[in-house]
């Protein structure tokens, strides 16, 4: 940017609440020289700095892109409302943290889509960055706008804003895509040629090359390519060899406090438990582990490069990691004298090892988090959460005996087939924990029992066995939350629930089709942004946007789909087949549990991917 604009930025920063969000300059942030041939990639995270810097995927891809001699990657986050207002007022384009380059000045602008409620932020960032929000209106000189992450698996709601989506593991794909774009831009190839070339890369979806038609009732009647070179099915990218896949050995260390301020070590990817509500569990199959040796090596490098005092083991189900006890023991051994504490998130109730629990406590004692998801065995069978009441009792008992005194329990309300009985059972669950605490003798247990129960509203997601199901109506959700509040009026127990309107809207967008893009666009025009933040969420404006676009939110959120309906995301092959998901749905309604496929293939469809699921 020119000197005048840079000086203007300097005048803005003292006026905003947390200027440290916009300055970069952190330890391990990469500032690379940009030559004419350098492919410049803006990694965009459509949420605040604090959320963005807590995200592991961004750190992995930032590291990989900056490692390429012919590329550079800089970070751009959604500015807080005070900053975006000032940028607009002063006419300063949204800029990257590292070199303060305007967003429109990059070759590739890549968004990571972690959450449906950040979609309006994608539009806002493009607009602030001087890039036309609609893909069709972008001129030849404009960057190519791409997107990935879990929400890219149903790309249709963002089809008119994003030039190309990359589905699945991005470690290699992002380099291929970036290199191709830069080469063709240097050759002055027209935009449409670049997009067509991108469509030939595995895992890459270019929405402008496809056409959708609808039945009178609003359901899809067809989805097909308009160009005979574009593939009719998009297969996700799958990296099988996690062990040799690039992983950062240094990550930027923020100055200001962020949500997860620690080293996070991805010990494995994928989960084969088969919880029927869980989208990530289906999207990221099969399970792939890194070896304990590789992890210890990475952990040591990361701690040395960052100076962090805390490290977490990250995966969808860390308790299932093959050599967990060995890994923890080895890490504790290396870090005991360096004063680094270890935390284990996403621990599943039934895989808690008493031994590991005690080891974790040696360094730092934090609360125990369990996710039974449903309070009755019947409903847990429906969602295939293979945990018994006995498992939960044993886990909390072990924890209390080892000196823990704070327990968090996560649930979902509004799951398919849920009845009042399932809600009343929340109270039994809380009492079970209280009893387990009191059974440990007074001298042995830590004082001050704290139990917190959280219940989020179930949002049916694409690529799960519940993708055909209706979400509870707002009225039903509110009624159920009232029952829960009454049931959980128990001393020492705190209860949190999610905002029903937010879950309702999330359900609309999560299973939206291409027309949902109009609603998102309209809502953004009406002033919606930062929807994931309670203080900025404007439900009324969203409802107005639906009305203005002549679309019914209930069609997306509260409608049960027929088995033969073409779903907007059917063209994406995630490995797990639609047929398998339907079978799982039928089993679910019968209360039949599907065992973890590590103990025998269940035919989900992933074996069609070469090299997947071979032991």
């Amino acid at each position, binding site marked *: 940017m020119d000197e005048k604009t840079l000086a203007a930025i300097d005048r803005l920063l*003292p006026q905003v609440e947390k200027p440290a969000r916009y*300055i970069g*300059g952190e*330890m391990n942030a990469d500032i690379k020289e940009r030559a004419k041939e350098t492919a410049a990639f803006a990694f965009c995270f459509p949420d605040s700095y604090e959320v963005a810097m807590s995200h592991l995927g961004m750190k992995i891809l930032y590291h990989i892109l900056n490692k390429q001699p012919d590329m550079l990657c800089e970070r751009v986050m959604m500015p807080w409302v005070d900053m975006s207002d000032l940028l607009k007022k002063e006419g300063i384009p949204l800029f990257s943290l590292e070199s303060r380059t305007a967003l429109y000045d990059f070759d590739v602008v890549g968004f990571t889509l972690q959450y449906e409620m950040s979609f309006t932020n994608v539009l806002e960032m493009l607009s602030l960055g001087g890039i036309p929000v609609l893909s069709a209106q972008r001129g030849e000189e404009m960057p190519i706008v791409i997107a990935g992450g879990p929400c890219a698996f149903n790309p249709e709601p963002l089809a008119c804003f994003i030039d190309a989506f990359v589905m699945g593991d991005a470690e290699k794909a992002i380099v291929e895509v970036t290199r191709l774009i830069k080469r063709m831009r240097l050759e002055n190839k027209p935009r449409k040629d670049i997009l067509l070339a991108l469509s030939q890369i595995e895992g890459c979806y270019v929405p402008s090359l496809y056409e959708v038609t609808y039945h009178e009732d609003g359901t899809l009647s067809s989805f097909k390519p308009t160009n005979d070179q574009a593939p009719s099915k998009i297969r996700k990218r799958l990296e099988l060899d996690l062990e040799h896949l690039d992983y950062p050995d240094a990550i930027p260390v923020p*100055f200001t406090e962020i949500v997860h301020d620690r080293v996070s070590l991805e010990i494995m990817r994928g989960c084969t438990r088969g919880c029927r509500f869980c989208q990530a569990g289906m999207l990221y199959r099969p399970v792939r582990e890194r070896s304990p040796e590789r992890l210890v090596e990475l952990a040591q490098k990361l701690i*040395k490069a*960052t*100076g*962090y005092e805390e490290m977490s083991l990250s995966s969808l189900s860390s308790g299932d990691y093959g050599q967990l006890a060995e890994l923890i023991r080895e890490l504790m051994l290396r870090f005991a004298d360096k004063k680094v504490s270890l935390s284990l998130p996403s621990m599943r109730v039934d895989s808690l090892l008493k031994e590991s629990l005690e080891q974790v406590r040696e360094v730092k004692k934090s609360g125990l988090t369990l996710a039974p998801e449903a309070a009755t065995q019947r409903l847990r069978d429906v969602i295939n959460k293979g945990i018994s009441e006995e498992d939960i009792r044993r886990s909390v008992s072990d924890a209390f005996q080892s000196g823990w005194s704070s327990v968090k329990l996560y649930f979902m309300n509004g799951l398919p087939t849920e009845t009042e009985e399932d809600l009343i059972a929340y109270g039994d669950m809380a009492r079970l924990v209280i009893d387990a605490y009191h059974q440990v003798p007074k001298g042995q247990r830590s004082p001050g029992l704290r139990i917190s129960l959280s219940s989020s509203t179930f949002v049916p997601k694409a690529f799960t066995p519940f993708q055909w199901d209706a979400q509870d109506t707002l009225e039903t959700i509110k009624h159920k939350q009232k029952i829960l509040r009454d049931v959980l009026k128990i001393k020492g127990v705190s209860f949190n629930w999610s905002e029903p309107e937010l879950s309702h809207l999330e359900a609309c967008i999560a299973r939206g089709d291409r027309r949902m893009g109009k609603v998102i666009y309209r809502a953004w025009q009406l002033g919606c942004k930062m929807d994931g933040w309670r203080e900025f969420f404007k439900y009324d404006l969203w409802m107005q946007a639906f009305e203005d676009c002549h679309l019914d939110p209930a069609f997306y959120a509260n409608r049960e789909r027929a088995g033969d309906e073409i779903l907007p995301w059917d063209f994406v092959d995630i490995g797990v087949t639609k047929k398998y998901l339907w079978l799982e749905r039928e089993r679910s309604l019968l209360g039949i549990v599907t065992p973890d496929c590590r103990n025998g293939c269940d035919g989900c469809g992933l074996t069609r991917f070469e090299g997947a699921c071979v032991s």
Partner: protein
Amino acid sequence: MKMLCVFSVTDRLKYIGHLDLMRAMQRALRRSGLPIRFSQGFNPHILLSFAAPLSVGMEGMREVMEIPIEGDVSPEMFVEILNQSLPALIRCQSARLVEDSSPAPMSQLWAANFSILPLEYQDEIMAAVPVLLSKTSIPAMRKSKKGMVEIDLRPLIHNVLVKDNSIQALLALHSSGTCKPDLFIKALSQCAGLEAPVPCKVTRKALYTQQFSPLEDM
């Protein structure tokens, strides 16, 4: 022993807060592998001691902090290794070994020298300097724990020099009296007949003891 260090925080990093700077120092020291003494207890940390917090938006050229160490390391080596672990815009300039019993820098701090560069109304502000200094009392309102209190800035302004386009102000900075640069700028702007305080680029150049010798030499 303790290592008494002089360091600078410049450019964009003037926007990080005091706690952010403390954390950044802690992590740099952990990265460095230098023989640092940790606190005892459940969450061991480094007992860093800063002479005075730096306000957000202000660069610091010769800030002072003290780091408890254990084991052998020369000050020269300490500076070199620490700089390898610090973000580029925080630099350690020098260090000196002192006894554990030597007083904390904060307790010896008396005043600080600021460079103040008005970004607007330069002429009016420069002309107002002698007017302000000729006053025998300069009443101002300062935020305190008990709410707003009235103080007299005049005895807290030790010296002011006008050089080119900037003002060098030596202002009191200790527990019994402090004149923050923003109060000084406000008073100066009022003297110049301006309604709002003029926006200025402020840099803290150095910290001093009661004898007006550099704090790091105490």
